[in-house]
């Protein structure tokens, strides 16, 4: 890997540390934890189960939102402050810039996943916490690549973040949407049903099923088979590569 990629990745990670992202993330997770403590206090049974499943679901969502906002705003600042123009005026291929940035953001994803899992270590078995954190990292890696692609394409924070969150919600519910399209819950659709089923199947082919990633049930049941990580890692690698290719395609077409 060219040294330039590693340098850009290092500076992307440094930027996250110096803009106090870890502190902000710790604050957000502490807020979610406080909410989970409230749940623990009002529950009359299974208090621990409810507390940690609420925390796991809340911190997962908070990590995704923080990462998407951080990446889009950081990239936009680089666009507007002309730092990007300066970098590309050097002898630096555009692909190295994108690769480096993605590397740095994936480093941020590792940090967020570990921070999110840390409070659970006191109550949940360590192997379960580690598998959950690893699955969350793979999910965040996809969110990082998606945010990078959206900001390179759209260049503005608002539309990019909305697109990332909409895609994320779709990916989290795609399995449910597929099941729904096959049941009678949607009412009488007659000839439209095969069309709907085909449309949903086509959508499911291009959207990763994120509902299989950091499953809250693992935390609630305090048990998980580490083998689940294999397909998750593979899905994450494939989709990150796809998003990276798409971001590069758009970035090479961009006129600075």
């Amino acid at each position, binding site marked *: 890997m060219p040294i330039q990629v590693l340098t850009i990745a290092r500076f992307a990670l440094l930027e996250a540390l110096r803009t106090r992202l870890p502190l902000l993330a710790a604050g957000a997770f502490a807020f979610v934890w406080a909410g989970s403590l409230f*749940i623990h206090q*009002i*529950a*009359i*049974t*299974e208090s621990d*189960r*409810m507390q940690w*499943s*609420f925390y796991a*679901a*809340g911190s997962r969502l908070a990590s995704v939102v923080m990462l998407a906002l951080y990446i889009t705003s950081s990239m936009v600042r680089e666009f507007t402050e002309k730092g990007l123009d300066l970098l590309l005026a050097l002898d630096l291929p555009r692909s190295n810039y994108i690769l480096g940035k993605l590397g740095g953001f994936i480093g941020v994803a590792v940090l967020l996943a570990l921070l999110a899992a840390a409070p659970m270590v006191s109550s949940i078995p360590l192997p379960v916490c580690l598998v959950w954190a690893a699955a969350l990292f793979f999910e965040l890696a996809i969110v990082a690549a998606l945010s990078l692609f959206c900001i390179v394409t759209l260049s503005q924070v608002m539309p990019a973040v909305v697109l990332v969150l909409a895609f994320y919600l779709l990916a*989290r*519910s*795609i*399995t*449910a*949407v597929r*099941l*729904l399209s096959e*049941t009678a*819950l*949607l009412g009488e659709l007659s000839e439209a049903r095969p069309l709907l089923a085909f449309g949903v199947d086509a959508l499911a082919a291009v959207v990763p099923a994120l*509902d299989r990633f950091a499953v*809250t*049930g693992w935390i*609630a*049941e305090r048990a998980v088979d580490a083998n689940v990580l294999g397909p998750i890692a593979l899905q994450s690698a494939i989709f990150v590569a796809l998003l990276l290719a798409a971001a590069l395609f758009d970035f090479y077409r961009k006129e600075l």
Partner: protein
Amino acid sequence: MARGAVRPRVPRAVVAGVIVCALLQIVFSLAQPKPLARASELDPPPSGPALALMQGFEPLPFAHLLTLYLQSFDNQPGISIPYRDLNYERVAQWLLTALRLDPTSQYPLLMATQLYAQVPDPARSRYMLELAYRQFLADPNRRWRWLAHGAIMAKHRLKDLPLALKYAGAIAERSPEAPAWARQMHIFLLEDMGELDSARILLGGLLAGGQVSDAHERILLLESLERIKAAENSAGATKK
């Protein structure tokens, strides 16, 4: 501030505007009617596509939120609704929805038997115990404790020994992982009902079958068997 620099002044119109607007806000708030505590009906739980999406998106936290919402529904702002005034069919729908989202949770059945079945209205208590019984049948090894509680309630509060026997018999029949006291409950209920013959046969079978390994438990059951036999003999002597 540097010496001689002119301190920027806020125009008087702006200051006046702030004061007037603040006063307007206070007057507007005071003019609003006081909030009245009003009990609202329990709405139906999420169903259809909404429930399917919850199931696919994040079932456990949604199940927990549903149970906590239901649990706190009797305490609405400024008003407390007695359980007996709740629509029990609706409550049952909420409990079943929560169970559907999180089938391993004990919470909904605890609420059914320990909260909603405790009202001083036998019909409503029976309704909730029946719900616990039906859900017990779906997962007897995990949900036996709520039926055991139901059997005790049926015996002591509802004074309905056949109902208690039905619940206790179901535990004995379907919950091999339940502790011995729960699986033996139906024998003592039979004794209470005067069905001494059946109780003696079941107890004798239990002891002869080798299912009881604990020495203390064996002694206790043998004593019970002797007591039943003595009661049978004295009943027989009275008849003669």
